[in-house]
Structure formats: C-alpha cells, structure tokens
C-alpha cells in the first residue's frame, strides 16, 4: 500500500456506442443514438463515443451534399439537448464556412460544441472514395473536455501511427478511435477487418501508453459489412471494456482511471522518449527532395 498511498483515483466512465446506421436515414440513426444514450445513462457514463459519421451513415457518396450540416444545424438540436447531462462525441459531415465538407467528430457537452476533429486521412483506394467527397482536416489537437483532454482519431487517422503520437505529445490523456470499419469474412469466426482493428487499437494504446477507446459501427450499409468489436484498452494493454460483438449493436461502459494512466506513462515513459528530431530530419529531407524535384 505504500507505493499507492498518494494515488488519488480519477475515474471516468466512457461508453462506447456501437450502433448500426443507415446512409441517409437520419431519424433511424438518431433513434440508434438515443437507444445507446439510454444504455450509457444507466451505466453512469460521463461521455458517450459514437462511430464515424454516426448521424448520417458512412456510405453517403454524393449524399453528403444533402446531409452535410454546420454546427448550428437544427438537426443537431436533440443531441445538443441530450448533451446537457452527458458528453457526446458524434460523427457527421461538417459543412465548412469556406466551402467543402469535412468528415468530422464533434464533441458536445452541456448543450455546447466543445471541440471538433476533422478526419486527416481520407482513404481513397479499394472500396473507399472519401477523397472525392470530403476535404481533409488540417490540424491535430486534443479536444478540451473538462475531465480530460481527448485525442480523437477518425478511422484511417489511426492507421498512421504519427497521429496518435502527435496527439499524446499535445497532451491527450485519452485516445478515442471512431470508425466505420468495413470488413470481410475469412477463415475463422472473427471478421477479418475486426482483427486488423484490434491490432491497431492495441498497438496504439501500448506504444503511446495511453488508454484508447475504439467505437466502431456494426451492420450493413449499401451492401458493405461493418464489423463492430468496439473495445477499450489501457496504456499497458489491459482491456477496460469489450470487445463488443461483431454483428450486434452494443453499449460498452469502460471505467478508466486517469491517475493510473499517468502512472503508466511515468513507469513506461515511451511517448516522452520519442525522438522528434528524427521526424524533423525526415521532414527536412522530404522538403529538400521536393525542392530538388
């Protein structure tokens, strides 16, 4: 007990809302949000994390032109109201003032917009065509929630390990990955896409020594399978909640202790040891190559 005598617990309960959305069916999607919210309330969650583009569905195509909204959009009113009690991180196509649309995750609390993360990496290969419909985000900053700084990664952002490293350097205490991760069926009873996600989420948590929360959608959209499996893991690789099943909607309540998370980063100061000068050298080398042509 001597080692932990000064340890003040700072518990936060995070709910992962694994829902099945339908592209272009806002009422249906909103109903799914409120179903999850009800479960999260029962679990006394302080923040509820919804998947990528949770409000509109993922495979919108040019439907983003009809469904994109700004932060004052009346369609957000029910969620603003619901955020009086509990913080909500929801996904939506965000209409930008200067034109263009971002694939955004918006943090709402006490009826206000607390912060917005715009997806940085828009996959445009294979079945993905996001670069056609969205503008990429231009910055990476943790969202300033009153309980903790939340580093948000939207789906493909998490496939670039630099994103999580930068967020943690910028002070993120929790990492949140919101995804619309498509999947395929392979030789065992876990969808192949879900296995890839669990490798990424686990590696993100362990290499940044930061609790990481993964909220994925499940179900089908336009013939594309999404594989759920929402999961939370602490900075030392221990499960905090989940994984949720692959195919069914679920709400997973996960308790994280922020003081313990800090202890982890003290005992295993891996992110503090990042050699940023190597990154800088690489950036400069890249710049030189571009200049030289």
């Amino acid at each position, binding site marked *: 007990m001597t080692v932990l005598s000064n340890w003040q617990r700072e518990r936060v309960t995070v709910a992962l809302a694994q829902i099945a959305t*339908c592209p*272009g*069916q806002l009422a249906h999607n909103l109903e799914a949000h409120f179903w999850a919210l009800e479960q999260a309330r029962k679990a006394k969650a302080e923040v509820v994390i919804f998947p990528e583009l949770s409000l509109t569905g993922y495979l919108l195509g*040019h439907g983003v032109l009809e469904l994109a909204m700004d932060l004052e959009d009346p369609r957000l009113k029910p969620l603003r109201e619901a955020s009086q009690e509990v913080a909500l991180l929801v996904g939506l196509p965000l209409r930008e003032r200067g034109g263009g649309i971002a694939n955004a995750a918006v943090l709402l609390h006490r009826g206000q917009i607390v912060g917005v993360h715009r997806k940085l990496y828009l996959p445009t290969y294979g079945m993905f065509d996001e670069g056609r419909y969205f503008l990429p985000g231009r910055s990476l900053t943790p969202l300033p929630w009153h309980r903790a700084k939340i580093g948000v990664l939207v789906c493909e952002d998490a496939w670039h390990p630099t994103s999580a490293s930068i967020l943690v350097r910028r002070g993120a205490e929790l990492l949140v990955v919101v995804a619309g991760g498509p999947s395929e069926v*392979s030789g065992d009873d876990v969808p192949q896409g879900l296995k890839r996600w669990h490798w990424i989420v686990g590696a993100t948590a362990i290499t940044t020594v930061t609790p990481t929360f993964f909220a994925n959608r499940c179900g*089908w959209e336009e013939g594309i399978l999404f594989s759920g499996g929402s999961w939370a893991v602490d900075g030392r690789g221990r499960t905090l909640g989940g994984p949720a099943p692959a*195919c069914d909607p679920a709400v997973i309540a996960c308790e994280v202790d922020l003081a313990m998370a800090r202890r982890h980063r003290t005992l295993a100061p891996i992110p503090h040891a990042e050699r940023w000068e190597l990154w800088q050298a690489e950036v400069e080398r890249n710049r030189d190559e571009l200049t030289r042509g």
Partner: protein
Amino acid sequence: MTSLPAVDIPLLAEVLQRFLAEELRASGLSGYVCGLSGGLDSAVAAALAVRAVGREKLRLLALPGPTSSAESLTHAQEVAKSLGVGLEVLDLGPTSQLLAQTLGCASDRLRFGNLLARLRMVALFDAARAHGLLVLGTANKSEILLGYSTLFGDQAASVHPLGDVWKTHVFALGAYLQIPEVILKKPPTADLWPGQTDAAELGFDYLEADPILYYHHDQGLSEAELGAQGFPSALVSKVLATYRRNRFKWRPTVIARVSTSCINVDRILPRNPKP
C-alpha cells in the same frame, strides 16, 4: 497455392442473413419473393431469407417452362417443404411458347432459354409489386464473374446475398443450412433445356474455376503467373477468356454522360434515403 482460401461458413451465413434483414428494413417493404429453381443457389438464398426475416415474410415461386425437367419442380417442392414455406407454381409454358412463336425464337434454344429466364424475372417483379416485396437474387460470385447468366433475366434482382460468395462456398453454405442432400449433390444447371449443365456449357466446373478466378480477380495474378503457380494453362486460358468476354454483364447498362450530374457517375447516392 492452388486452392481457394477458407471462409468461416457459420459467420458467413450469419452476416448474410443480417444483410437481408437490413435491406428489407431499409426498403420499408414487407418481405422477399424468390424463384425456386430446384437448384442449390436459390435454395441457399431462400434458406438465408427464412433465417433473416422469418418464413412468413418469404414468398416462393416455382416458374417451370416447357423445357424444364420434371425433377426441378420436385426439388423446388422439396426445398420449400424443408423451409416450411408454401410454394406457388406458375407454369410459364403456354406464355413462353406463345411469345417465342411471336418472336420467332422457338427453335433457337439459347434465345428461348433467355426468354424463359426473362419471363421468370417478369413474374418475380410482378409478385414484388403486387405484394410489396423485394426480389431475392440467387446469383453467386462465380457465375457473375463468368457472366453465366441472362442479362435482365436471372441476374435481375433487388438484392444479391450470394453475389460475392464463390460457388465453392455456396456448396458449403448449402450443407451448413441443411439444404436437402439431393440438391447439394446434383450438378449445377440453369435448366433452360433438357440435360443442360453449367459445366458442359462453360467447359469447366466451378470448383476448378474458382481458385483461378480468385487468384486473378482478387489477388491480381496474371495468366502467366497462374501457370507458374501450377494451374493448367489450358484451363486458365478458358476461364479467363470467359471472365473477360462477359464482363459487360457486371454493369448491365451505361448512361451517356452529357452533364455534370450524371446518375451513378457524378451523383452516387444512398439507395434508401428517408428524412
């Protein structure tokens, strides 16, 4: 490296039935209609639909023509019975013969076969309209890739649950879903004329073709690389020639784009939007 990678069949069945449930929910319609041919593909599609939405939301039609074998109808009845769903039999014989006479194609078995496949489509979409249903497609990935189907005939459907499933795996799904043994064992046939089999028409069977198609279409191996992997080169040539020849059937029509809002080119939109 000459076999098809394994797929977890229970998981495949589960996700496909959820696909059918979601497509029905999103459409707002009340069920599915499926033509039972007496073969494996339609039996598997129907069995998935029963698991997805319940037998009371599935309407089954047998649509025999004058050249269909009597055995096909018996097998369709057996499938319907095993699923606990009634089977409505609509004899397309007189209609198809009359139309064939009008069109002058009665003696051309390929044209007559296509006509029959398209009349089945007419019957299925009419039932869909009459009862507020979606047409349940039965085409599998192998036959779509090879273009072994009738354009706007058996290929036409509201949804294709098996359209990304190799025929090799449809056999496994059939066994898992407890499709009657006699149907699992019979050779695949479109049943468009007596004695017809897919293998005799294509010049190879699906179990031979599937790994070749997989390593070419999915993994990108060239014809030469497939040969180097040990696939017989004559078989590879035959399979890939069919794969290339019938590719137009993957996209049954093309719209001439003359604006900046061409449907499915400049405007790709969700199928079932609702406020």
